[in-house]
């Protein structure tokens, strides 16, 4: 008895501060995405406003921790998922996402989309991309590594912070990068590199936090990271190192759920996603490269970013088939 009254009291206490969904038009679209996309400062709110201006509908975001959590949520919910679109998976997760059987072909013309390597798929449409890169602090490193080989064989006193491929997407990105450059020699490369690794964090945030607090002069992140510091913090202290072997690519995609309550509206949004109304918000809100044309010029900072001549990317099927074995190999090499 007392317990229930406590519960209701707590609920009442927390209720006024929880935003109630808008009473919108009769058409509704729910989109599952990752958390930073729908943050106040992310692209989500601006894209919502742009889409709702023409659609006579109510667009709702549901944010989860990241792309992997997104896929997990889908697997947990299965057929019960109330969303129309999932936005925020990357190509490494595409094969697993298709295996759930929860997605429909989008059936749209994707000619507007242009990503390095020309990734195209009948189920998932790219909306932005970014290359992984080693970001370094120019105040403590004068000559950054010029290749992955340099990074692997460089001075062990110059440390790098990386992410764990078992728990994070950038961590998996570096694993695939090393694999695509070193192939069968990957284990030996990791063993050499482990001397330079200060620590392996569970996710991107922890690693980047260690880097900006000056613990390590290098971190694994994206070629677009320096743009944030230039545009928002007005400093070019943090730069990306260009690697001669090429850079591994991360493409972020969106797909249509077969149980979408309003498929028509969901397809409208996917089409909108390939237009400037959506793409304009990507560079300076999501800090990635737009996958289709924008109507506004990119900030000057983007012109100074590393633009890799060579893009490395495994197919979704290769990743799905080998991930467990490659992570085992990484574990063995790093634990020695």
């Amino acid at each position, binding site marked *: 008895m007392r317990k229930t009254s406590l519960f209701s009291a707590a609920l009442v206490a927390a209720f006024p501060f929880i935003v109630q969904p808008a009473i919108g038009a009769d058409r509704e679209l729910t989109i599952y995405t990752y958390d930073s996309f729908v943050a106040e400062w992310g692209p989500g709110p601006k894209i919502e406003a742009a889409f709702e201006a023409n659609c006579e509908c109510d667009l709702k975001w549901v944010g989860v921790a990241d792309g992997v959590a997104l896929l997990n949520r889908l697997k947990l919910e299965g057929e019960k998922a109330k969303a129309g679109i999932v936005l925020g998976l990357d190509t490494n997760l595409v094969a697993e996402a298709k295996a759930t059987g929860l997605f429909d072909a989008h059936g749209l013309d994707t000619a507007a989309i242009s990503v390095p390597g020309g990734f195209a798929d009948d189920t998932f449409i790219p909306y932005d991309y970014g290359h992984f890169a080693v970001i370094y602090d120019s105040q403590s490193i004068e000559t950054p590594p010029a290749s992955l080989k340099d990074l692997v064989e460089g001075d062990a006193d110059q440390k790098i912070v990386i992410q764990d491929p078992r728990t994070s997407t950038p961590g998996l990105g570096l694993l695939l990068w090393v694999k695509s450059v070193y192939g069968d020699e990957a284990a030996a490369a990791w063993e050499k590199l482990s001397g330079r690794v200060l620590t392996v964090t569970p*996710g991107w945030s922890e690693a980047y936090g260690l880097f900006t607090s000056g613990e390590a002069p290098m971190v694994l992140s994206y070629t677009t990271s320096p743009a944030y510091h230039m545009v928002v913090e007005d400093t070019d202290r943090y730069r990306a190192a260009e690697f001669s072997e090429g850079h591994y690519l991360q493409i972020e995609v969106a797909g249509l759920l077969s149980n979408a309550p309003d498929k028509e509206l969901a397809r409208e949004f996917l089409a909108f996603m390939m237009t400037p109304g959506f793409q304009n918000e990507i560079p300076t809100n999501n800090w990635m490269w737009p996958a289709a044309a924008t109507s506004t010029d990119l900030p000057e900072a983007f012109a100074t970013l590393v633009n890799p001549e060579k893009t490395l990317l495994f197919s979704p099927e290769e990743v799905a088939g080998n991930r467990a074995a490659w992570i085992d190999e990484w574990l063995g090499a790093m634990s020695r």
Partner: protein
Amino acid sequence: MGGVIALVAVGLALAVPIAVLISFGISSGGSSSASGNQSAYLMRITWFTLMQAGLSTLLSVLIAIPLARALARRPHFAGREWLISLFALPLGLPPLVAALGLIEIWGRSGLANQGLALFGVQTPFSIYGLSGILLAHVFFNMPLATRLILPALQRLPGEYWKTAANLGLGGFTLFRLIEWPTMRRSVAGAAGLVFMLCATSFTLVLVLGGGPAATTLEVAIYQALRFDFDPNRVVLLSGIQIALTLAIMAGLKLISAPTDPGSTKGGGTMRPDVRGGWATLPDALLIGLGALFVAGPMAAVVFAGLAADLPRLLGDPLFWRATATSFGIGAAAALLAILIAGLMVRARHSAGDPPTRRSLAILSTFSGAAGSLTLLVPPVVLGAGWFLMLGGGAGQLAAPLAAIITVNALMALPFVMRVLEPAYQTAMARNGRLSLSLGITGFNRLRHIDLPAILMPLTTGFAFALALSLGDLGAIALFGSDRIITLPWLLYQKLGSYRTDDAAGLALLLGIATMGLILMADRLGNPSKEERR
């Protein structure tokens, strides 16, 4: 009766999500295939988990015992209450914030290394690896253990000291004959709690561990759920974690057993081993070092936070929304934890010692175990189970909130039990016969006699539970808590999109809020009121 209900409630809250997860695993046809390589890996991480937890516990408790004694010997120095409140603070910080604070002090470019550089030491020492994990765990748990051990010493009856003084006891004899028997149960309880906290530690181990050589079962569980999505393996690994940790704790008798505090007039502490002048030096040194060790990383968190644009953060409605949500959840979880703990402690006490009937003995044992078990079930497992039970989180509010509150209350339960139980035993032993002879029973007795006697541990327990809940990211958050935004969630959101300064500012505000609450709770339960009665 209330004890049975509480026990059943806890059992259900733990078992149901796990059962749901198992049935989900079976129906989705996932199979756990542990190859030879996998089982070797499992052996290795199990060993590492227990080894680092054992070492962390040993260090934390070995430092906490002399520190608690020093604090008990010096009941009146300036800032003592502040210090004791500060000792509850590490619990209330998100582990990542604390880790970054620790790194500011002990990291490669931290204060300690900068200090060494002044003395011409060129190569910075690196804390990453086992040493970093131990350092972080001692920072988190030594203050907690100190706080758990101290009340036992403060409850020591005055007669003991008078007798000891008459017999001319001092130093180690005093510790052996008087302090240790009193402390023993709290030390065991604290050690058990710290062991569980370290065995299930996740963020700290990964951030400071230096690499995959430092992998715990909790990491494997997280990975099995997140990347492999293999519910069967998750349940198997969780089972290993729970069984092993409990077995070790039972083996070391860390699941606390009651003792008899005896009857006493209570009150004054005229200790024969307390002298002024130079004799205060060792105590002062110990307390000073302990304070510095805990306050250093906190100060780093404060300084990092001050660099943020605090006015802008404070002017952000989202911040206030998150704060209100966090406090609502925290307060509800803390109340629930206290309610369950109170019922279980009462049930265990009325079962008698040794328990009079078999059924009561079972109840007593289970309550003791339940007060521990809840920490060993990985939050991510509870989160996934609850999420499944709620049929996804979209569009609902009350159900996910209730789930978060329940999970947080369960996590706080072992803390509250450990604070409440020894105090309750003492209070009952002192007031039991008196109440009977005065014919005061039932609610009146609860209100006038028992409640005042355990007010302090109640408020302390509340503060712990609230602090814990405030710093918790929320297990269910992993799968999206559509409109429930808590402070740690907001903090991680900022960190996840380059806004490090904002995150540092939020960490500072969170720290201030937690510290304020703990101070308030400590003041409410101020023992000086007791002494006046």
